[in-house]
């Protein structure tokens, strides 16, 4: 892909840390959460018991996956108070912070699909099969209808996300096979296919993402020179345009519920266009002419004509 970069960019030197801070922080967070669950079985330090589906922290804090809890309730079973309480805590936390934080900061499958995404870019492969983004919402509805219709947690028989986490904490069995399938699917069949198009669990957490506080803002969008680095790396790149290409005082916030708050766009942007902020901060940094930035085709044409 041809990239348009402003020439004055060459003097910009960013450290490896700056180029990868949120990626590194995300990996550390993912490993931290996994470590909490593994410290018990591996080292006998029982801070957290259970799995992401349902857990008990420090023998006091119950957490339950609301995606599973909802299915259970749709089968007609009313869960115990601990389970309900755990579900409410998780829902509230993600609604306030950002629903799809689960996807990019907690979910163990994210490491797999990110790796697939990386390989996909390295091999410069075609996008492949790209089902509509809303397919996952239909999948979510299907999963819920299945729970209602069959009276059992049918999707849990194949849910790669809970399966992988349970496998890591309790023993993998054939779960490696499922992981390999998701990896190959995302690499060779469909770019960002699983997390970006199909996973009903991600769709569910996306629904909690409507009004959450943490948002990425393209507050410095006037500095953008259309290099497309962010679009290339973003697993949900349709969320960027409204914020980045907004005109005038249109909000620079990425408000789409599909944004996973992974912060990779902040990492890869040499021109510091993006930043993490809260949803009420609609500030736009107005551009100074002398700094590198978007090459306006009209002015650049005019400049060329003058010379």
């Amino acid at each position: 892909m041809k990239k348009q970069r402003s020439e004055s960019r060459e003097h910009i030197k960013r450290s490896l840390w700056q180029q990868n801070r949120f990626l590194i922080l995300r990996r550390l967070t993912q490993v931290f959460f996994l470590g909490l669950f593994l410290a018990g079985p591996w080292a006998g330090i029982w801070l957290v018991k259970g799995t992401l589906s349902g857990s008990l922290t420090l023998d006091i804090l119950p957490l339950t996956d609301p995606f599973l809890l909802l299915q259970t309730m749709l089968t007609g079973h009313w869960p115990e108070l601990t389970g309900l309480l755990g579900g409410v805590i998780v829902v509230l936390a993600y609604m306030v912070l950002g629903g799809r934080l689960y996807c990019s900061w907690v979910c163990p499958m994210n490491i797999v699909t990110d790796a697939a995404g990386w390989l996909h870019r390295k091999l410069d492969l075609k996008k492949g099969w790209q089902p509509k983004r809303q397919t996952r919402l239909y999948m979510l509805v299907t999963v819920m209808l299945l729970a209602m219709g069959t009276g059992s947690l049918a999707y849990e028989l194949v849910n790669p996300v809970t399966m992988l986490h349970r496998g890591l904490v309790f023993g993998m069995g054939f779960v490696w096979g499922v992981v390999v399938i998701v990896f190959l699917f995302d690499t060779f069949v469909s770019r960002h296919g699983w997390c970006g198009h199909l996973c009903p669990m991600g769709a569910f957490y996306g629904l909690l993402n409507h009004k959450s506080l943490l948002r990425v803002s393209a507050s410095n969008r006037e500095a953008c020179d259309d290099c497309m680095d962010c679009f290339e790396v973003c697993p949900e790149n349709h969320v960027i345009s409204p914020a980045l290409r907004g005109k005038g005082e249109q909000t620079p916030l990425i408000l789409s519920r599909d944004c996973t708050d992974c912060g990779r766009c902040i990492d890869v942007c040499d021109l510091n266009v993006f930043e993490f902020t809260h949803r009420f901060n609609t500030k736009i940094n107005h551009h100074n002419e002398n700094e590198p930035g978007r090459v306006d085709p009209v002015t650049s044409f005019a400049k060329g004509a003058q010379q």
Partner: protein
Amino acid sequence: MSDLKKSGLISVKRRQFLGDVARIACGCAVTATFLTVYQVQVKAMPPDAIRPPGALPEEDFLAACIRCGLCVRDCPYDTLKLADLGDGGPATGTPYFIARDVPCEMCEDIPCIEACPTGALDHSLKQIDKADMGVAVLIDQEHCLNYLGLRCDVCYRVCPVIDEAIKLVMTPNTRTGSHAVFAPTVYADACTGCGKCEKACVLPEPAIKVLPTRLARVKGAEHYRLGWEEKAKAGNALVPGLIDLPDRMPEDASSVPDFKPLFNPGKGKP
């Protein structure tokens, strides 16, 4: 069709939208069909897999259990484990145990039920003696040492509900003609299905096994009245004035040397 198009009733956009929805719906329908069939299949538990105490009936259990593994973590004897994908066991990720490996030790405080956040293990079960994980069945009398006339008694001795769930019922040893067989006999109402008998059986393969209740027990015939019970309920003979005629004995019985009748009809009558 073309008229509709001209009139703008079916725009290109709408056609595209409907096409997309149809494709997605088709994919979802395939997924749903596969999962519907699959979830029916996993309901058939392998007969040696036993659910933890207080587990709801299998159908309800698969609706309520979120596969979190908290019951496994709180089991002090490492009895419980989660089913692995593809090992032919119960539904993936659900808790179970194999009695011959590690039986349930029947903790009095039932920590596994306590740990369950959804009630897939029924929190109303407070006494472990009332648990109904399955029923022990003496499955092979021909190899059971007690049935062979020996005094193994191991299953009887280890039973946590000794003399209620397993009793030794004395019967004549027909092989020797002069000894007794102490037959281990399971009384299903008292048996919790903990599997300690199955674990303890000294044979290479257990002669006594815990089976799911649906396999081990049948429903009694409700239409069939048991005369002696009805009589006890009524407090007297159901048919008044019934004459009990004396049983006929061989006429020359007294002439046979050492003849002892197997039973004496005169005795044991109320």
